[in-house]
């Protein structure tokens, strides 16, 4: 790789493509050779702004636009909040909700695209095992293994100067005989007025590790609000603390530098989230020749999901039916079955959720 060269012929001052300007080289005339390092430096300095590039941010819903479960509050271990963001807690109490940012917040951030924040009002418990965490699991642990990554975000404390910790874990998934989860050491920052923070991590290689066979291995980003001594190292030594903190503009990218926030198109954000969780509505109708007749209807999911989802059906009216179930669930559809109560028209309306969350 050290000898790779990219050559371009142009006069000094002439634009190449959109923004590339030939570099002045002593002794050169109309051609120059840029090393790969020079190209990377040039690209990182200009590409995000000039080319409006997207795809650097590997997190989903980092702006918290997608809220298929509503605005909260959520208080229980295992709850999902804004799409893709979950809560993990032990002994601590939390109240996580989606809160609208104010013009003052937007001015402090310097971006009027800031609309929603993830707000956690929490109380730390003094127990050694106590903690509270907001996390996102990124599908496929191999995407980030062996790489340097940078996590960046805007954050602010409602009062005081609490710490906020960040760590990275690698979960090997299920099925077969997967290796144990690799637990990462955390880093922390001290918060105050709204500001953007970044931390760089080296994600361990998975060489020699065995991944589960079910395709559910992941890299987990943990945001630590409080932690007792048991998880102090993971939590970046944030300690036991209480407070209220908001987050916005979450980004995780490959590389050692935090680049400008990558804000995918809302359509793309919705599709990313619906791969893991989606809600929908539908209607089924038919005619039964008598009682105890089975009627079937297939519901197509909005996007192909990560895995076969768990389906929750909520009938919302109808007539002449009972015993609605879901079966033949795939990543793209499921079948509803109902039983007629008597001869005649059968109809029902329903809403559903389909969850393939990691």
């Amino acid at each position, binding site marked *: 790789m050290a000898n790779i060269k990219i050559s371009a012929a142009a006069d000094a001052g002439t634009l190449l493509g959109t923004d590339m300007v030939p570099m002045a080289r002593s002794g050169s005339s109309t051609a120059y050779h840029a090393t790969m390092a020079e190209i990377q430096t040039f690209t990182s300095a200009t590409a995000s702004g000039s080319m409006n590039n997207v795809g650097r941010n590997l997190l989903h819903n980092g702006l918290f636009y997608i809220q298929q479960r509503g605005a909260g509050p959520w208080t*229980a271990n*295992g*709850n*999902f909040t804004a799409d893709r963001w*979950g809560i993990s807690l032990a002994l601590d109490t939390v109240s996580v909700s989606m809160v609208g940012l104010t013009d003052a917040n937007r001015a402090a951030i310097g971006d009027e695209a800031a609309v929603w924040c993830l707000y956690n009002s929490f109380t730390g418990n003094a127990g050694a095992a106590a903690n509270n965490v907001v996390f996102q699991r990124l599908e496929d642990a191999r995407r980030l293994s062996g790489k340097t990554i940078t996590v960046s975000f805007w954050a602010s404390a409602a009062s005081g100067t609490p710490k906020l910790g960040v760590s990275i874990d690698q979960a090997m998934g*299920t*099925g077969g005989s997967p290796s144990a989860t690799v637990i990462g050491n955390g880093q922390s920052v001290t918060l105050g007025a709204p500001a953007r923070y970044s931390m760089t991590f080296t994600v361990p290689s998975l060489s020699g590790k065995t991944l589960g*066979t*079910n*395709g*559910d291995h992941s890299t987990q980003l943990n945001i630590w609000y409080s932690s007792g001594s048991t998880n102090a190292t993971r939590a970046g030594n944030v300690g036991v603390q209480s407070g209220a903190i908001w987050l916005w503009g979450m980004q995780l990218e490959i590389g050692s530098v935090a680049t400008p926030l990558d804000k995918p198109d809302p359509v793309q954000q919705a599709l990313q989230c619906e791969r893991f969780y989606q809600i929908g509505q539908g209607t089924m109708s038919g005619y039964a020749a*008598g*009682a*105890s*007749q*089975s009627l079937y209807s297939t519901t197509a999911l909005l996007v192909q999901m*990560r*895995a*076969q*989802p*768990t*389906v*929750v*059906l909520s009938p919302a009216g109808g007539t002449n039916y009972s*015993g609605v*179930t*879901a*079966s*033949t*669930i*795939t990543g793209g559809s*499921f079948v509803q*079955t109902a*039983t007629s109560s008597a001869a005649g028209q059968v109809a029902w309306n329903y809403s559903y959720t389909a*969850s*393939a*969350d*990691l």
Partner: protein
Amino acid sequence: MQLAYTSADQTTIQATLEAGETLGNLHGPGTCFVPTDGGNAEYNDIVARSLPIGPYVPPPG
């Protein structure tokens, strides 16, 4: 928590959760339908906890 297959081919489990019960990423109360897919968090929870699953009961008629 009550679990039973919803079809003879045992590809789906109906799970009825009481208040306070959890299954994978879901919290009761409520009824959900869990595919017997190793990539599904709720099914993995059933397997990990060795929860008993009732047989499929076909509809009458």
